[in-house]
């Protein structure tokens, strides 16, 4: 089973993963589209685009905007809806025999929970994880659910009652204190955290004189997201899926050393489909150099959990 040759066991809940590298939600379709492009032996799981209770049309154009060293997107969660996914897509990706993480979301807390109920009924077991995309508007408040600790706690708590499958809370990096949000999700019963979704960003179409609001991903955010993972790791004991700007072997490894138990690749997966392999090679080198015997040793290797008080930006 050690197809990636990492001589170390990596588990998400009870499921053994072939690789600590997984796709991030939204850049991998519903799981089988990139079969010919990406070496599935090099990824630990399939992660679906976020699915919602009803099909979503998504945002108008433009949805994609190139930045100097990153990407601004505002897809608006276009997806086929959970029902069609369960009926048409799930049977197909099941055959790929990879652990499956289904990402679910919605415009409101209620929608997310309805979606969770639906999938829990239709696929009551066997998923590697259900990821709650908590980067959705906090109705009536001027932020996203995972920018508020109480709201995060509440929705995860309710979600926990609905499913006993492996539950991942995907967080926004735009919270004031991601550690607090992470602790809330953990206390409410999340099995793991996915950190992070995109950073709020802006660009401008000078030709059309139009403001573009969306989420920033890719290389530019790595120094920020890795810092937040570093910070989150000091606050929680459940595994973290580190996501945000990973774009090379070295940045993948560094995210793990900061505290990510596994890592997700979004933007860079499309720019370089070979990236899972490059990261695995880097990790293998490091494991050998440091003579590491257990995956947990490498996770957070450079992160002194005790340094918490010094974590403030010193400008």
């Amino acid at each position, binding site marked *: 089973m050690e197809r990636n040759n990492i001589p170390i066991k990596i588990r998400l809940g009870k499921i053994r993963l072939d690789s600590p590298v997984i796709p991030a939600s939204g850049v991998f379709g519903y799981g089988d589209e990139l079969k010919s492009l990406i070496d599935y032996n090099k990824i630990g799981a399939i992660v679906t685009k976020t699915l919602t209770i009803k099909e979503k049309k998504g945002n108008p154009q433009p949805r994609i905007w*190139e930045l100097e060293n990153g990407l601004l997107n505002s897809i608006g969660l276009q997806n086929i809806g959970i029902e069609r996914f369960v009926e048409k897509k799930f049977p197909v990706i099941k055959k790929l025999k990879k652990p499956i993480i289904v990402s679910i979301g919605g415009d409101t807390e209620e929608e997310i929970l309805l979606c969770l109920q639906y999938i829990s009924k239709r696929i009551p077991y066997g998923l590697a994880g259900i990821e709650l995309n908590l980067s959705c508007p906090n109705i009536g408040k001027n932020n996203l659910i995972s920018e508020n600790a109480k709201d995060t706690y509440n929705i995860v708590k309710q979600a926990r009652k609905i499913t006993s499958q492996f539950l991942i809370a995907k967080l926004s990096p735009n919270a004031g204190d991601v550690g607090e949000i992470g602790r809330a999700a953990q206390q409410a019963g999340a099995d793991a955290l996915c950190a992070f979704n995109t950073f709020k960003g802006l660009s401008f179409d000078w030709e059309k004189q139009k403001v573009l609001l969306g989420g920033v991903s890719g290389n530019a955010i790595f120094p920020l997201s890795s810092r937040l993972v570093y910070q989150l790791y000091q606050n929680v004991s459940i595994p973290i899926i580190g996501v945000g700007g990973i774009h090379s072997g070295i940045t993948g490894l560094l995210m793990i050393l900061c505290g990510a138990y596994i890592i997700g690749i979004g933007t860079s997966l499309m720019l370089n489909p070979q990236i899972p392999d490059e990261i695995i090679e880097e990790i293998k080198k490091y494991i050998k150099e440091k003579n590491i015997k257990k995956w947990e040793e490498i996770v957070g290797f450079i992160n002194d959990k005790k340094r918490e008080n010094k974590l403030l930006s010193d400008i």
Partner: protein
Amino acid sequence: MNPLEHKISEIKEKKIYKKNFCLLAIKNNFHYTALPGQFIHVKTEDVFLRRPFSIAKYSDKNLSVLFQIKGKGTFSLSRKNPGEKIDIIGPVGNSFPYEKFKGDIVIAAGGIGISPMIFLASVLIKNKKKFSFFYGARNKDLLLDIFLPSGKYPAVVSTDDGSKGEKGKITDKIKDYIKTGKIDAIFASGPYFMLKTISEIAQNANIPCYVSMENRMFCGTGVCQGCVIETAEGFKKVCTEGPIFDAKQIKWKETTYL
């Protein structure tokens, strides 16, 4: 559709035309065959995202892209030289449905939009299909008529300012032409508003029309939903549900997508 492939291929040849156009012939190390209308998604320096380019020429040995130097990405690509490698994903997308049509086909190309039509015409020739090639540009500096495939077929070349070929819009030439006889289909590639006009002409004349659409792309592989355009059946992805669309299906707008 064929499975997508990711390849690092060698550039075999480079040519610059009229200062602002570049042809790159790349070693064809794809396992599967490409179809006319499909594109490749190309990585280059100095810019973050890949860039999509239609396949302009295709053989077992090489495939070529022909592009206009527009911004940073195309500029950096135009600086690459034979012997260097480039990183491509492809062939992506659907293709012109030429097999569906028995009779006369009109190929309509505008400016750099000629690129996929070179490949298309060569396939039509190989398949002994009847077609006529209409090619227009704003002026002679933007006209790449040297790329009209050799072979026997009617060709009309025009420039808006008459600096080469006939004077006038190529869409007007097509409008006149389709009055003269039975046309089975129009295949078009070019600027958005040219495609929109051709679409109207075709619809008025009740001729099936297929157009090659463009949009900003991230993944170029159908997974990100970034490149969708509005159609009668809702949003469709240009990269994998296109780039070739039935012109009737497209909700044409007053402003371009790009």
